[in-house]
């Protein structure tokens, strides 16, 4: 083999450490996503939809709508983060496509010949998808809150009227900011789990949208209020988005962190199902 002058990077090709293998796998998955234009469009769309929808909604706020500002109990922080409700769709799409497009194009077979450990492949994908969405979500949440702060003040919800300016120094506001950031990341992972389990873009998106937006609709059709509340407690979106609330927490069907926990449980469970399918089936 005269021409075999290639990179075994100093180490014997067969004695690669466990940690190094993880780093390489994550690097490969990162390169894979980085080299698709669509990745950057998705992340830009995530930021833009979150900030734009938040700002448009908050922009409709008028102090005059409240009879008395002090008793109106307007949750200005939650209102400023309305965009999360739309941006989660982009996160779902991005997460699902990160794996379902591999099945669509057949690259999953190339991926698994390069990375035979399916567990390592899926975990690396989750880290890279989660990291990219986290970066975009952080920008979106900050942008939404910043826009909200200005718009809320302009609408007359001033500190003098009992509404301190929105700022992360406030405990509940920080919780809502961190919570919505985490929620968007969890939805992306939920999408990844669905894509891995269903191996099909259309199927994963249908299931994902039903789960996020259909579940609350079903809940609305239920007549018994106890059932409605139970449905809101277990649905990933309505439970997860309770983390946005900063006022009037008693009226929520589930506490903010507990609600986020429900969303995390959905994402985790779907990833586990996805891994089960990936581990056991031929590709």
């Amino acid at each position, binding site marked *: 083999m005269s021409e*075999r002058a*290639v990179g075994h*990077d100093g180490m014997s090709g067969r004695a690669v450490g466990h940690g190094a293998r993880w780093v390489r796998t994550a690097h*490969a998955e990162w*390169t894979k996503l980085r080299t698709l234009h669509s990745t950057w469009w998705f992340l830009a769309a995530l930021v833009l939809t979150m900030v734009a929808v938040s700002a448009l909604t908050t922009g409709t706020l008028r102090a005059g709508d409240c009879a008395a500002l002090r008793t109106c109990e307007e949750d200005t922080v939650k209102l400023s983060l309305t965009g999360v409700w739309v941006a989660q769709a982009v996160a779902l799409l991005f997460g699902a496509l990160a794996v379902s497009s591999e099945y669509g*194009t057949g690259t999953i077979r190339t991926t698994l*010949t*390069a*990375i035979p450990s399916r567990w390592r492949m899926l975990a690396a994908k989750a880290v890279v998808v989660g990291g990219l969405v986290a970066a975009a979500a952080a920008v979106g949440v900050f942008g939404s809150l910043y826009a909200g702060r200005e718009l809320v003040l302009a609408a007359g919800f001033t500190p003098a009227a009992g509404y301190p300016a929105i700022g992360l120094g406030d405990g509940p506001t920080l919780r809502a900011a961190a919570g919505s950031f985490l929620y968007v990341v969890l939805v992306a992972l939920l999408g990844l789990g669905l894509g891995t389990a269903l191996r099909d873009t259309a199927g994963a998106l249908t299931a994902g949208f039903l789960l996020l937006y259909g579940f609350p609709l079903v809940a609305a059709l239920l007549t018994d209020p106890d059932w409605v509340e139970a449905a809101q407690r277990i649905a990933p979106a309505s439970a997860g988005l309770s983390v946005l609330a900063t006022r009037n927490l008693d009226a929520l069907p589930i506490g903010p962190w507990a609600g986020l926990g429900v969303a995390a449980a959905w994402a985790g469970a779907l990833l586990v199902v996805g891994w089960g399918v990936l581990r056991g089936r*031929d590709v």
Partner: protein
Amino acid sequence: METDADAGTVQVKGLRKRFGSVTALDGLSFTLTPGQVTGFVGPNGAGKSTTLRIVLGLDAADDGEALIGGRPYRALSTPLQEVGALLDAGAVHPSRRGRDHLLWLAHSHRIPVRRVDEVLEQVGLASASRRRAGGYSLGMRQRLGIAAALLGDPPVLLLDEPVNGLDPEGIRWIRGFLKSLAREGRTVLVSSHLMSELEDSADHLVVIGRGRVIADTGVRELLAAASGDRVALRTSARTEAMTLLAAAGATVAATDRDALTVSGVNAEKVVQLLAGAGVPFSEVSAHRATLEEAYMELTGDALEFAAPPVTGTEAS
């Protein structure tokens, strides 16, 4: 344990695989050895791709095992540096540039980036490497897939139908290329459903049909067996030649107005007899069967999807 003797060998042992009620592999076994190009041939549906997918750990066998250098694929820690595979040339994300497809593969094994450009050069794709793969022709995607297989400079190459979609220049290129890879001491497996594609490149053949090995033989031995000791003869005096050769104990068949095929007597004897009796002839040659003929003889009864024989007057 891996020993030097195992390095570069691929062992397929008693593979069985069913898809529902269809038996794809029915106890398939063969061994590939370094330094030669092995043709992996069989009609469509014979189980070639299934075998390769099992060897690469993508599909699980119901029974049996496939070992590379003595270990299953999924136990290899740097698989691209031990086995290079081309499975499906279409399996590239259309929006990704050709070079980027190799780049992420390289990153998965910390193969240096210059190796990416090296293999692109080697397969003749350097100038198109920064274009999106979706715009590639089938031939270009084949070349990209071959570049991916070569990326880790592996001692074993498994290529599923690499000739598909290549233009005549590409076919000539890949034949020479496969031979040069084997000359470097690598184990090269090339699958094909067309025996003629392997005529000039394969040294060894594993012929399968209906999930079983029909023949595991050297190309030369196979051709010799199929050719027999027949002699092709061209003569203007057909009747005299036939009478003379039959009298000498040969079996003679007329294949054309002035052509005969003679068996049972070698070419030298044929010349001697005809010259001695003054029968004119213009051409005597040992008949050489094509690989295709040999293959048809082997697989005649193992075709999965055989068309019914053509009957009627329009058949010639």
